[in-house]
């Protein structure tokens, strides 16, 4: 397969490579034969109608789904099934389509807990307040506070997240994802349900994350305006197949994409959420 050869050639410098990936649920193909390579530092959008397999793709990359076929390359290593437990250690972070915050924790703790995986001190050291444990914790709190500052969340650091508005909660989730300085960030519909102002603000944040962390960002998004303005390249899924992949300009001109998706984008936008 020529696609495999291409992947093999670039895997060592790709932030993420997906190789002939297929996934099905009870006989229904969610993804079939997807090949995708994401370069380091790139903002890559994945678009497509509802049910096209976008979320499934991110769930496979973060190990929540186990693909039927194919491999995922992360940080130069290849996986038949990505180990979710080691995701953070591999430098991968993600947000969820539906909010996935820890309602019983404050904003600061929601973000700080994203650094737990790097701690060396055990639970006894933490209870006893040994110097190592205290240093780690202080450093984590400091880093989390800095991230809150970056996302203009400092005023709410001690509030329980359940008491915050939807848009703010989305921002907290983004803060939690970036706190450990991931090299690859997967965003599943970060703009869904946001106002125009919030979307504009978030677009700025995503660019800033890429620039400050030199992170690679893969995002699923419905808002074509946002996607075209923000991404370096765009991949288009339809019925689990990759029907287009290229720069925003190339995608705009791609007939298959226009037929499947762009031509009816407005209908889709209007019909979303039903």
């Amino acid at each position: 397969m020529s696609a495999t050869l291409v992947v093999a050639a670039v895997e060592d410098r790709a932030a993420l490579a997906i190789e002939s990936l297929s996934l099905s649920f009870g006989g229904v193909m969610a993804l079939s034969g997807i090949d995708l390579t994401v370069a380091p530092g790139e903002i890559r959008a994945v678009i497509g109608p509802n049910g096209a397999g976008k979320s499934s793709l991110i769930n496979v990359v973060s190990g929540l789904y186990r693909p039927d076929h194919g491999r995922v390359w992360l940080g130069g290593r290849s996986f038949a099934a990505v180990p979710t437990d080691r995701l953070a250690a591999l430098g991968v972070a993600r947000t969820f389509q539906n909010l996935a915050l820890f309602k019983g924790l404050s904003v600061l703790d929601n973000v700080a807990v994203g650094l737990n995986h790097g701690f060396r001190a055990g639970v006894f050291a933490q209870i006893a307040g040994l110097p190592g444990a205290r240093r780690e914790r202080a450093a984590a709190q400091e880093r989390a506070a800095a991230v809150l500052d970056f996302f203009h969340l400092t005023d709410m650091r001690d509030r329980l997240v359940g008491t915050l508005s939807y848009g703010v909660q989305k921002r907290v989730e983004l803060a939690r994802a970036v706190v450990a300085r991931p090299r690859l960030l997967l965003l599943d519909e970060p703009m869904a349900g946001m106002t125009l102002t919030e979307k504009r603000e978030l677009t700025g944040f995503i660019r800033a994350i890429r620039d400050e962390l030199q992170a690679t960002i893969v995002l699923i998004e419905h808002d074509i305006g946002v996607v075209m303005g923000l991404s370096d390249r765009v991949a288009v899924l339809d019925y689990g197949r990759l029907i287009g992949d290229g720069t925003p300009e190339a995608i705009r001109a791609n007939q298959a994409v226009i037929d499947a998706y762009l031509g009816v984008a407005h209908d889709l936008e209007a019909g979303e959420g039903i």
Partner: protein
Amino acid sequence: MDLSFFTEVLVGGLLSGVMYSLVAIGFVLIYKTSGVLNFAQGSLLLFSALTFVSLIERGLPFWAGILITLAAMTAIGALIERVVLRPLVNQPPITLFMATLGVSYVIEGAAQLLWGTQVHGLDLGIDDRPLEISGVFVSTFDLFAAGVAGAMVAVLILFFRYTGIGLGFRAVADDPLAALSLGLRLDRIGTAVWTAAGMVALVAGLLWGARLGVQFSLSLVVLKALPVLVLGGFDSIAGAIVGGLIIGAVEKLAEVYIGPFFGGGIEGWIAYVAALGFLLVRPAGLFGQKLVERV
């Protein structure tokens, strides 16, 4: 190993397993519609048996006793649903569970305040003579109980398949929000389900009461139904039946063949260990489909 003795133990176990299924079905009905693990099912069973026995002892004819008890069970079921569970809607499942535990305390206490704490015999008029079927001895009473349980399951299936309320129940169990948007009266379905659970409790209460005597410990038969539910799934009537058979058989076989090595008395926990062991091999349970977590 003596094969006919083994068969006898196995059949005895399967038949007592039917009795477990009977209790488990009461749980399933309520769990499917409201997501509540109704711990009060055992106390309902006790209450129904105690009420029936006391009425008979006061000279009422059998059918009058049945009807009055059924009316009482219906009223209690509806009352629990309206007074206790409806105000707690949207609370976490553990809170609802606790509430049903509170209900079970109230019913157990009230039943005994009302009818006294002494043990009553309950004679359903069935001889418990062992019946010989091709060399294997089977308890007549167990056979009768299995027959009644089977009939009750058939009635439930007909009810849920062919009546309006039954169809509503299935809709609610599948998707409460969609059912609501279709204009189904959830409250009426809730009441109907609790009534059905009360009826199941009556049947189970009479059978268990006839076997063990009607007394406080009757409410503890829930502890026999719980491993059945773990095995068969809290939301599957078929699971409750098959699970009950498996648990009944395993329990009896273990009691006879393994129990002596441990000094006996293992029936208190062997069902739980068996159910857990099974789930280790098949995490999805007997009939559970593998759920895809939507994230």
